[in-house]
């Protein structure tokens, strides 16, 4: 099943101008556990998608809100010439097709 067909929220945003943070929020505990266990949502595949090193990817489960947070460094500070997404609000797109 694709993440976009399971999650109720998949979003990205700057956490300060040097980091991107992603929130995946699920409807049910079953879905949350399934995403938490999914090999596709571990640091290494995420690092590959965003071309960063795997040890720079921090994955934080947040069971209180049935959510998984992923934080990783931006390639350049927000707003440099040629930046694609100053607020970082559209960097979630490649996560949507991930199979979980």
């Amino acid at each position, binding site marked *: 099943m694709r993440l976009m067909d399971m999650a109720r929220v998949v979003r990205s945003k700057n956490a300060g101008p040097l980091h991107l943070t992603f929130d995946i929020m699920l409807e049910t505990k079953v879905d949350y556990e399934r995403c938490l266990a999914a090999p596709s949502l571990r640091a290494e595949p995420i690092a590959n998608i965003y071309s960063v090193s795997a040890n720079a990817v921090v994955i934080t489960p947040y069971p209180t809100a049935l959510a998984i947070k992923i934080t990783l460094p931006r390639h350049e500070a927000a707003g440099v010439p040629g930046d*694609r997404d100053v607020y970082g609000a559209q960097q979630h797109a490649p996560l949507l097709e991930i199979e979980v």
Partner: protein
Amino acid sequence: MSAVARLRARFAANPDQPLKLIGATGQLGYGVPKPAFTTALARKPDMIGADMGSTDIGPTFLGSGQMATAGEQTRRDLEKLLVGARTHDIPLIIGSAGSSGAAAHLDATLAMIRDIAAEHGLSFKLAVIRSDMDRDSVSAAVDAGRVRGMGVLPDLTVEEVHASSNLVGQAGTEAFIRALETEPDVIIAGRACDTGIYACIPEWLGFPTGLTVHMAKIVECASLCCLPGGRDPILAVLDKQGFVLESMNPARAATPMSVAAHSLYEQADPHRITEPEGAALVDIATYSAVDDRRTRVEGARWEPAEQLTIKLEGARYLGERAVLLAGSADPRFIQNVKTLLEEVKGVVQDLVCGTGVEPDYDLTFRTYGLDAVFPWPEPPVTPPREIFILGEVIAPTTDRALAVTKSTKQYLLHHGFPGRLSTSGNIAFPFTPPELAAGPAYRFNAYHLMEVDDLAAHFPVTTEQVG
């Protein structure tokens, strides 16, 4: 007696009463909804807060000293809050004045405040917190190895410290408390932690810090923690064990899940809220429904920092920006667009600089429809029917930036390639001129943590009588 002095006396007489705080807006200057603000005032709050700034908006506003919000709307929002607070004699606290909180932003905000006061015949004591960093102090900290990076930016250097057009620090709760000690009616701060706006009064009055910072981090976004989230003012009623959240718009509900989920928003770590003076640990917080629209939060703990730090923010001038707006619906052009854009870059460089001369400008293209927003590793399976091309030029002057952009436009329009069918033009312009001057360009050159022994020296507080 000032509004803050009155509040202090009231809590001195009865320290166990709850404190009612209003988060009026998380982004002053885009509009504060009137019905919810009127409801908020009717609840007789003990303070009204508003945040005006963020780094989300990019480096240009910090660098240029301009506000990100429109002057007219910013003044309207300030007027609503100031007149409301003064009419009811409630302390008003505003942080990160004018979008980025440097001197120019703060002074423009203060000018509006004085102007509004004169127009409405208001008289009050104003406390001002300045957040511009002394370059020599920061340079000394750099030399002493007391400034550390937080990500992709290189280590801060003395050269960069002096090259920043504006260099600010985020004032913490400490600075707001010093402002409260002057017993003002209104506090306006330059760049500040959004939590300081709301944490200062409860901390000053003796409420537990962990709880207070957790509350502050939620109400600084107004009703964003609700379902559905939105910009309406929010009320927090704080006691010594917890706080209850209620949106001032009856259509929005603060539910245990929506409030808990708000800890994720724009935060790298949902379990801790890091401040200059320490961190609130919120992983053990509990969220329980009071009713359909209100949630009570308890349990956050405070961990004082072993080392005080100030988050520095600086922006450095790069040059003048011009942009080119163009589209294409030609399948042969779209198929080859990446190569063609590189070819045109070379052609333009030869024309505006001379062959082999290093360009004095920076030209980048984004191709919407292909990979402008995300650097997809593979092109789309089916080519898009249309694409949009955004050209960006940064050059030493506006004239130079426009000259490069105009040549780029013309040569992109007529650039030949094998198989070209559309020999009268490769691109469509939505209007003319399709090349536009976009003002000065900046980059963040500081976003670092500076270790300090004392916060107060960096954020001076002054007071004045307005009206």
